[in-house]
């Protein structure tokens, strides 16, 4: 069954983003709340560093709207680490009712859709939606140790160190969460872990097509249509696949391409990770919406579904993409 989820009265009360050094050196640095030069975030291990990043991000989020932990009814979030430890350990001392999620790099869109649905249905008045990733902990889990002297192909991507969060609420603010389409898993048969863009591009294109079929909107109704972390490779594949969609290409961009400077930073095809779409949306896009530079935003969070075992077993990498629309009101 196919359905557009329409949310009643769900608004962004507060937004927060915490990033690392590489992201600070990127072109969007002025839009983040905190940039931390220390990759360890003052902790002893990469896993602790990522949790600390989450903790700081949630604190900034609550501080910005002068809420305390008791006034938040719910939180949902996720990350890339085994058993989602970074997102859960980061919030464990706050005593906020919590759902841990995994949608690979689409987690930010996923958590926002679920939080918005619960608020829209009237179960909750407010809730936090967040997602995070850390370059070092992701490398440790998925690839090689940091000090290993190897080379990467040009299609590989660089995991963003960052945590982005929204506090959604049923009271009116400047930005409304309007509607969403939940993604279907698309297996395009890609087995190359260094070409995640190609693995996710099919899913992104399929979700975008479904969104415009199910809603009354056209690409021209949007100021920005942004995918999560396709990178240059996946971006070009989506452009090719949707070349006959009128007015689409002018509005289409990708968070993984916006977050780094290709000329100055050695990031190959671009940024990736849960934190990528999270910090670009909660930092850059929300600022643009508050400054009336963007009115209508379609975020298409993209994720590649796999783990290191399935890759070595020769199983293909599936893609998933969730679309969610934000509107400045």
């Amino acid at each position, binding site marked *: 069954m196919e359905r557009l989820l329409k949310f009643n009265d769900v608004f962004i009360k507060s937004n927060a983003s915490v990033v690392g050094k590489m992201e600070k050196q990127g072109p969007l640095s002025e839009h983040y709340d905190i940039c931390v030069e220390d990759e360890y975030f003052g902790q002893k291990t990469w896993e602790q560093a990522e949790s600390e990043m989450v903790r700081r991000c949630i604190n900034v989020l609550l501080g910005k709207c002068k809420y305390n932990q008791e006034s938040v009814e719910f939180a949902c979030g996720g990350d890339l680490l085994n058993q989602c430890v970074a997102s859960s350990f980061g919030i464990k001392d706050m005593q906020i009712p919590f759902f841990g999620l995994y949608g690979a790099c689409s987690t930010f869109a996923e958590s926002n859709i679920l939080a918005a649905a619960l608020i829209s249905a009237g179960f909750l008045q407010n809730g936090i939606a967040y997602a995070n990733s850390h370059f070092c902990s992701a490398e440790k889990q998925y690839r090689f*140790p940091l*000090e290993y002297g*190897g080379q990467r192909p*040009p299609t590989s991507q660089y995991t963003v160190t960052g945590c982005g969060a929204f506090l959604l609420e049923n009271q009116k603010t400047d930005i409304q969460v309007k509607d969403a389409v939940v993604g279907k898993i698309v297996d395009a048969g890609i087995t190359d872990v260094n070409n995640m863009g190609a693995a996710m591009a099919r899913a992104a294109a399929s979700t975008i097509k479904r969104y415009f079929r199910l809603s009354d909107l056209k690409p021209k109704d949007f100021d920005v249509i942004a995918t999560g972390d396709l990178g240059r490779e996946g971006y*070009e*594949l989506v452009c090719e696949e949707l070349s006959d969609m009128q007015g689409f290409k002018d509005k289409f961009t990708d968070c993984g391409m916006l977050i780094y400077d290709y000329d100055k930073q050695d990031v190959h095809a671009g940024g990736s990770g849960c934190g990528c779409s999270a910090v670009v949306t909660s930092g850059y896009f929300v600022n643009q919406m508050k400054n009336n530079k963007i009115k209508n935003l379609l975020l298409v969070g993209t994720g590649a579904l796999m783990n290191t075992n399935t890759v070595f077993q020769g199983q293909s990498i599936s893609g998933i993409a969730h679309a969610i629309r934000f509107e400045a009101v």
Partner: protein
Amino acid sequence: MENSYIEYTKKRSKRSDCVRNCLRAFFVGGFVCIIGFAFKQLYVYFGVGDENASTFASISLIFIAGLLTGIGVFDKIGKFAGAGTLVPITGFANSVAAPAIENKSEGYVFGMASKMFVIAGPVIVFGLAASMIYGFIYWIYLML
């Protein structure tokens, strides 16, 4: 349909610059060998026998690669040189030292020691297996 997409993405994806990487690997790899040879000559000069001097030269290169890994320089050299530092004994030393450092946070037993050979392990296993096969063939050759 699906196969054509896989083929298409393979075809269109940008490749690493093969000529540039080969040249870098050639010169850096050669330079590593020159350093190794210089060490060997040095040890011979100090009166170590020829065969022992080669072993000492290898040990010296392993030490330098381990040290450069520990202070966080080797990965930058390796990124530039590729096979130039990977193929000589420096690459092996780096592949053991790097995971040992990375996994120290899980303790000396379950972290450092158990993860030390995650990259180098296959090289050791198949290296030993190959040398056994070679030894067996050599033994038969001697019998003939």
